[in-house]
């Protein structure tokens, strides 16, 4: 009898504990929802921030400290997520734990989050401080400003100036023929010309976009025209040259092209083992860590026989969203403005990350590559990014096709047909 009672009691407590566990969590969210006016209450206000990368962490820390000092009683809770940010953010949104401020990649990705986003259109005072073209990347279909831009990111071929000089290349190649000639010269000097990161789907799929670009249409125009069927991969003027480019990269590259990951690629470039890679200026800090003295620069990607076709693709990729249902909306807006526009924010972007901020700024930028790209931007030689506004899953669909071409399993015609099929699906 006694044992039975014990058994029953244990059962009850166990179940009770479990239910209590569930109950308390749901209870607390209810309370959160009620305490709307967090600003006035004396209790500590916690602002939940989700940062989808981990660039310039030290400066970010300083920035957070300053914000907390200026706003007593406010605690900033940052989650940095350099890996799999998308999965993590999605999980948080689905479980109702939406961060007050978070950033995603502009384009197709960002648009899926816009229903949670605060609409900045009427905050002229704030939005005017950004470059107009940068702001355009954060608008929805109706042109409302739903997210704010971070920094300009540029991608193209990054080349090693010392190795080019060693091979006696005095003028940068601008056409496919000149590129081939440059490869031959490098080869003759015993230098590996290319270290294309063939293992990375994202690198390959980004490389391909150079050959899709039509300067008169820019990124959005190209994507629209492919979508409407006016432009196909068969009739794109420069698309076939991507295969010539890949042939060169394989012929004058490492023996096992599909085993080269981004790290090997960047390492070889920085340590004078390879002359060219395809990458963007976001890798500045990694390159510096491999060899701070590397003498590197941007080379707009040759895509045809015409010099004026070369492309450097530039975009404000990361875009910041403020949760419109945030309990501390005003504070969240203030924080978002603080990190993107204030002196401290500019210090983070220019010194910590080494990139050109999207906000109008006179500050000197640390990154060599970013400064290099600045010149091309000034000359109007850059275009936007295609891969971020392409249909979702672009990178993981196109990367394997290009790998198939490199390994010889697919012909150029098959890749072209598959690209078309992907877009139409």
């Amino acid at each position: 009898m006694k044992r039975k009672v014990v058994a029953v009691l244990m059962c009850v407590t166990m179940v009770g504990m479990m239910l209590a566990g569930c109950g308390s969590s749901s209870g607390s969210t209810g309370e959160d929802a009620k305490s709307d006016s967090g600003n006035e209450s004396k209790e500590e206000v916690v602002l939940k921030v989700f940062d989808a990368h981990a660039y310039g962490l030290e400066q970010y820390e300083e920035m957070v400290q300053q914000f907390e000092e200026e706003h007593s009683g406010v605690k900033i809770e940052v989650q940095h997520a350099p890996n799999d940010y998308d999965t993590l953010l999605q999980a948080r949104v689905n479980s109702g734990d939406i961060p007050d401020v978070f950033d995603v990649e502009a384009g197709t990705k960002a648009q899926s989050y816009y229903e949670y986003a605060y609409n900045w259109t009427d905050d002229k005072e704030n939005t005017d401080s950004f470059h107009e073209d940068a702001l355009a990347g954060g608008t929805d279909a109706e042109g409302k400003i739903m997210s704010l831009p971070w920094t300009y990111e540029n991608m193209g071929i990054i080349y090693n100036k010392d190795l080019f000089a060693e091979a006696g290349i005095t003028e940068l190649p601008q056409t496919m023929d000149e590129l081939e000639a440059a490869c031959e010269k490098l080869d003759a000097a015993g230098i590996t010309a290319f270290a294309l990161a063939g293992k990375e789907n994202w690198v390959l799929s980004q490389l391909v976009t150079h050959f899709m670009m039509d300067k008169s249409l820019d990124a959005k125009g190209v994507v629209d025209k492919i979508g409407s069927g006016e432009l196909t991969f068969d009739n794109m003027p420069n698309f076939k040259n991507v295969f010539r480019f890949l042939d060169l990269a394989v012929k004058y590259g490492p023996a096992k092209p599909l085993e080269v990951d981004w790290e090997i690629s960047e390492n070889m470039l920085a340590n004078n083992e390879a002359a060219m890679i395809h990458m963007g200026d976001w890798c500045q800090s990694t390159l510096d860590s491999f060899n701070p003295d590397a003498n590197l620069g941007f080379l707009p990607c040759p895509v045809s026989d015409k010099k004026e076709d070369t492309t450097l693709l530039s975009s404000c990729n990361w875009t910041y969203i403020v949760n419109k249902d945030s309990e501390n909306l005003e504070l969240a807006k203030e924080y978002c403005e603080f990190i993107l526009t204030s002196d401290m924010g500019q210090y983070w972007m220019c010194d910590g990350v080494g990139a050109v901020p999207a906000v109008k700024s006179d500050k000197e930028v640390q990154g060599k590559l970013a400064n290099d790209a600045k010149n091309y931007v000034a000359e109007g030689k850059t275009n936007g990014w295609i891969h971020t506004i392409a249909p979702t899953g672009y990178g993981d669909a196109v990367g394997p096709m290009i790998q198939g071409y490199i390994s010889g399993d697919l012909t150029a015609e098959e890749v072209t047909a598959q690209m078309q099929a992907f877009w139409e699906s």
Partner: protein
Amino acid sequence: MKRKKLKDFLIFAMFVFPAVAFVLFATDIPFFMNLYYSFFNWNGVSRDMAFVGFDNFIKIFSNDGLFWKSVQFTLKYAVFYVVIVNAIAFVIALVLSKEKKSSSVVRAFYYVPYIISLTAIGLIWKFILGPGFGALYDMTGWEFFDWSWLGTGKLAFIVVVVMTVWQNVGFYMVNYIAGIVTIPKELLEAAQIDGATRFQTVWKITVPLIMPSISICMLTALTFAFKLFDVIMVFTKGGPANATMSVAYNIYQEAFVNGKYGLATAKSLVFVAFVLVVTVIQLRVTKGKEVEA
């Protein structure tokens, strides 16, 4: 009498209910939510979901080459993995089940890879296949070491099989040893006296008597192979050119990269049904062969 029944039930409930509750929250409820989502077109983020009926399932069966390619890969992998890992583990277990001082040390060696974290294993194999094989090629000149192991589809498949077998063989070995040591010594001695060869003793006595171990090992190996995900995620990312795309990785990509949550859940359901059938058949077959000493 009635009281006894009630008491039995309560004791039963006390032990079983907490576990059931946990499984319910962690597995069963999500499973049914999965079922629910599979009828919707949802990007995994939005508040709105569009009901599309069986469209997702139709899409899988009519127009999803990559999914079926990944099914093909997973099946091929499962066959190779289950056979190889069990065969090797069984042989090692036979040798190491003898009571010797050295055998416990050697057992530990085989077990170590099983407890190392996957990230470290990824790094180890990256080293073996990169600088390791490079140095061996320089020394021996054998072409074998110079192949692009991770850059060629067929070779990458072999790498995935070898790596996972190497990693997990210790686990199956322990299971087999546990089975082998329970075999009564008399039976083995009797067989020897009757003039059975070493091979005959293993085949006619050891194997039938450890059938429970075999069926458990087969089952774990099979489910491991079907669920293959982490190794792919850390090591090959499904590449090169989707040659090592496992079903689980394909589902993950569909849900979190391509943003087609509904389609991904439908795929996972199709695969659950498939795995269920295969494991039931497998269990029936091996259970039927179990004997008692």
